[in-house]
């Protein structure tokens, strides 16, 4: 027989209720997808309880904090485990998630459907977080707005661009910080950036750890091809912001023309 589909609903606190037809096993297993060639290590089991009307539910509470990654969802029945296909995913509580203040560590969960059609949960776990917001491009100038969550207010903050595989090549930009010390913006119009990928961080204060800029606080698990920006042309260079496969914000610098 075919595997039942599991619907799910998530609330603003990240609590996920999985629902499926009753009589299909005793629990759900969430498994952190291991890196290629690695054994699976991190598992999480949820009880599946009948809730009447032929439905069964399993609840993943706001605790535990899940490690960052992709969690596959399996149905447990005796010793058997079967990967679940998705039913409706009610993620509406996540859509305006960027408007709520978060504490650190920041744990985010977004149920999604894998490319091959199975139910999975995308998770992020960051000690602190800088949520990317508007990106404005006027001529050669790129302006990025963001908001800090889970860290002390910005005080003497620096935005840092770090060249990937660049052996520590850094550029520093001073952000414009709002009165609350949380919202900030910065501009990039540097015609001397090296060609390559630059990852974006904010360092809230002198000596504080760097915080990655990313966009995690809505319902979009994979935004690389959804939030797409054009490039800003600065001199000979085109600087194009983009979201990585992990929804982190980076700059792709290429030669114009």
């Amino acid at each position, binding site marked *: 027989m075919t595997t039942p589909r599991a619907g799910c609903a998530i609330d603003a606190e990240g609590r996920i209720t999985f629902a499926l037809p009753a009589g299909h096993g005793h629990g759900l297993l969430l498994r952190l997808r291991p890196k290629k060639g690695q054994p699976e290590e991190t598992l999480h089991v949820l009880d599946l309880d009948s809730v009447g009307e032929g439905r069964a539910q399993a609840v993943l509470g706001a605790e535990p904090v899940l490690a960052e990654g992709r969690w596959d969802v399996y149905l447990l029945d005796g010793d058997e485990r079967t990967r679940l296909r998705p039913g*409706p995913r009610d993620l509406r509580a996540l*859509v305006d998630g960027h408007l709520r203040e978060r504490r650190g560590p920041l744990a985010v969960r977004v149920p999604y459907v894998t490319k091959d059609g199975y139910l999975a949960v995308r998770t992020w776990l960051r000690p602190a977080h800088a949520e990317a917001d508007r990106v404005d491009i006027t001529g050669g100038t790129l302006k990025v707005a963001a908001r800090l969550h889970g860290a002390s207010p910005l005080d003497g903050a620096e935005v840092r661009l770090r060249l990937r595989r660049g052996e520590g090549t850094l550029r520093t930009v001073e952000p414009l910080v709002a009165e609350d010390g949380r919202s900030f913006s910065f501009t990039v119009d540097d015609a001397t950036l090296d060609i390559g990928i630059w990852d974006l961080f904010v360092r809230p204060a002198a000596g504080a750890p760097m915080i990655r800029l990313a966009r995690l606080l809505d*319902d979009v698990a994979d935004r690389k091809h959804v939030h*797409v*920006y054009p490039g800003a042309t600065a001199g000979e260079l085109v600087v194009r912001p983009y979201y990585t496969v992990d929804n982190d914000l980076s700059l792709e610098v290429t030669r114009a023309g």
Partner: protein
Amino acid sequence: MKISFLLHNAYAIGGTITTTFNLAQALAERHEVEIVSVLRHRELPNFVLDPRVSLRPLVDLRQERDHPLHQRPARVFPRSEYRYGQYSELTDHRIAEALATIEADAVIGTRPGLNVHLAGQAPPHVARVGQEHLTLDNHSPRLRTALRRAYRGLDVLTTVTEADAAAYRRRMRLPGVRVEALPNSVPDPVLPAADGSAKVVVAAGRLVPVKRYDLLVEAFAAVAAEHPDWQLRIYGKGEEQDRLRRLITDLGLWNNVFLMGAAAPMEAEWVKGSIGAATSDFEPFGMTIVEAMRCGLPVVSTDCPHGPAEIIADRVDGRLVPVGDRDALAAALLELVGDDELRRRMSRAAQENARRFAPGPVVEQAERLITEAVSARRAGRRVVRQRQGGTLTARGSAARDTALIAASGALRLVRKGRP
């Protein structure tokens, strides 16, 4: 009864597939139902099919794409049909064979070319119900001429709007055939309806020129300018994707307008929004409008032929604006975006009014039509006994189509003759 649907490709995404699945599943409550899918290109359908409905593919493209007969053009499936390129001698054979051996009391065809197979090849005891999910006015004169002959072999012909049913009665002489509008049905939503608070406008459909998403993006520029915290999400994929992306970039709307990719089913996406948008130049029915309304979204739609005006009551449960009018579209969106109370009121009206497209009433009508056709077949008579009116108009239409075909043929000759 045993009922079989004949469908182009049950494994793809589209309004006809959704509505066929919906109707098949609802009929399966009381009948034995199967869907015969002419083509198959993947393991599972995009939409979950009720296990009571069986699914039977005829040509599996994963193995048979290179079949010698599939390289030869179709002869039964009409050349003038939109999907002619996907049909072949192989589909001709398989469909004919499936119909000759079918164990159903009634077969329901779901597109013009398949209705032609059905009308000409179903065994005499099998009732033949042809469904038109497109519209007569939009068919080419050549296709209309092919159907004018073939559709006489049907027992029932259903269209999705009253307007289209009227066109068939006026322009086609189909003696003995019951012609009736049977709207698409949309199942009861499983998720709670949208509450009107989300600052999201949602549209869904294939990204093709007729859907006019370019107009929607342009109109949304006015919304984003006044309400920068609102976003437009367009779900679907298609040939217009790159052009729409460029338009979003040119208008500087990348913070507000998003091409979300395909989503099926759409229900969980509709409920994230509070306004639906449909901007087609032409829409045979408007399935997504009904889906959005059933999820509690008032829909701003162009008043294009034929569907939207038969679904939306302007200013009651949504808005109808002139076709291709960007400013009217923007104004209607702005009015709803700027007025929370209006949006909530229309949301409630949309849910209430869209209930007439619930499977219940639609399935009852379908059941009645099928039963009527089956009993007529059993009694060896036509479904409609009296002569239908409009014969003179129909003759005129037939003559006009023949003239149009001759003219286009002559034009081709003239063009050919040029150096």
